[in-house]
């Protein structure tokens, strides 16, 4: 089991979700984060004082999947999120030791989906 974390642009969320559905990945957890990367922020000005904002709004997806879903999930995210422009984001994959479905107390690979 793996935990996939993806940082994407906010306006790509809808497309990524659609791609994930196609790949039969329906479960995920989403939140808003601020990303600091290659992409330059937009200058802000308050009463004539410039502020170089370097944190940009991004969406963070957290998806737990079984091994054989790892590559399809990555592909789906790439399909949905790639624009070819700086700021497209990253995907991180980590090992998942255990997974529990709270409702049923099922564990492991059956609990994940």
């Amino acid at each position, binding site marked *: 089991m793996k935990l996939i974390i993806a940082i994407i642009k906010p*306006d790509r969320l*809808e497309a990524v979700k659609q791609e994930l559905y196609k790949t039969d990945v329906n479960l995920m957890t989403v939140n*808003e984060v*601020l990303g600091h990367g290659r992409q330059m922020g*937009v200058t*802000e000005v*308050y009463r004539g004082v410039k502020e170089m904002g370097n*944190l940009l*709004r991004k969406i963070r997806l957290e998806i737990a999947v079984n091994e054989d879903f790892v590559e399809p999930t990555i592909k789906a995210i790439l399909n949905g999120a790639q624009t070819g422009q700086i700021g497209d984001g990253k995907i991180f994959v980590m090992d998942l030791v255990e997974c529990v479905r709270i409702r049923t107390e099922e564990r492991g690979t059956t609990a994940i989906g």
Partner: protein
Amino acid sequence: MRQWAVLTVLVLCWMSAGMALATETATRPGATLSPGGSVQGFTSSHGERDGGGSDGLMPVEGATRAPLIEAQSAPASQVMPTGESVPKNDTGDTAWVLISTALVMLMTPGLAFFYGGMVGRRNVLGILMQCFVLLCVISVQWVLYGYSLSFAPGKGFWGGLEWVGLKGVGFTPYKDYAATIPHQLFMMFQGMFAIITPALIIGAFAERMKFSAFMAFMILWTTFVYDPVAHWVWGVGGWLKDLGALDFAGGTVVHINAGIAALMAAIFIGKRNGGGKTILPHNLPFTILGTALLWFGWFGFNAGSSLGANELAINAFVVTNTAAAAAGLSWALLDWVFNEKPTMLGVATGAVAGLVAITPGAGFVSALSAIVIGMFASIFCYLAVTVVKPGFGYDDALDVFGVHCVGGIWGALATGLFASKGVNPAGADGLFFGNPKQFLVQLLAVGGTMIYSFVVSLVIYKIVDVILKVRVSEKDETVGLDLTQHHENAYTILE
């Protein structure tokens, strides 16, 4: 597309109505007796000190033998006895119009919140900014030349430049507009209307118009569309006024005018990225706050249009509140039936639709008629928003056309149906009170305004687009107008 065919038929209908009317008017010369415009006088009370005894009339102190409120049209002036030519300011009337002016001013920020709450978090300042900048720009434009273009007397199309820089606009009443309040106050009151009208259009191109293009478009639009149309309907010598069209507080001048320009803008600027998706209001309480301020300010808008603390003001106040309420309720019921639950945004939208619809008739219809007008306002606007808009496929982001133009058309026509001399002796009777001609006159006013406004708005739009490019880049649209057009964030995300 089938829809455009329907549209063509509608236009043809309007044209035949116009012709029918033209014929009739030619044969019946007395038809223009009832003055249009916001300053409906009670001509029947002329010369009677205690007209208060006859129900429906209210004596104003100090207007001893003059008409209570000077009707603004030529025929009304004729009934004024000679030797009574020095109008005087009345402190009560002045107080009411002063505060009404402030109330109408508050509507523009109200509108900013009404719209601002509905857009995304990254575009809210774009909306607020556009509304506020209009408040600034048009306030100055109005003093410099806008008032003159709209209200300087004499011409049919524009008002001319006699009153540029407020030259000659002093503190004594200008009796053709308002006989009991200082002329400058009338000027300021009207100025607030000139501000909110272009502001209404903002909702159509929300989230995607470049700020520089916005500025250029709006200054031109106010000068070449708002100012002339205001003159037509309210200015001494305006052709719609002379025709006898009834528009108490600006259904035609403000709502239809802005609404049709909004439709033009929505069509030509194109859909938002993502294809004109639903609105997902980032802060509905702001929208409700805006609705509250609009409703509150509308008392100044409509009841202030009587230009005095007189009975017309009372009538306008009562019907304004009643129509808004009925329309809010009606939209709630529509939502309940079609979407299982009544929604807050629905009630707010309905209330605004009702306020729009009652605007032209506020001084001519009764409270019971206002309930009917309000109820139907929501029905028509609901249809416009849920059926017509998806049908034609334009992306009128915040439904300016669907609420203001449709509501305004219904209101103008409803005035032609429900107007009653029982309510306002200086007004006219509508279709339901035995005067079908008034309905045709209303139709003509509506159609004339729509065609002129659509065409001239389009020309202005195209000129601005060529020079400045109206739409922001796709990237800027994605990032949002707040950051890209104004270098600001509405909210801190992290602190």
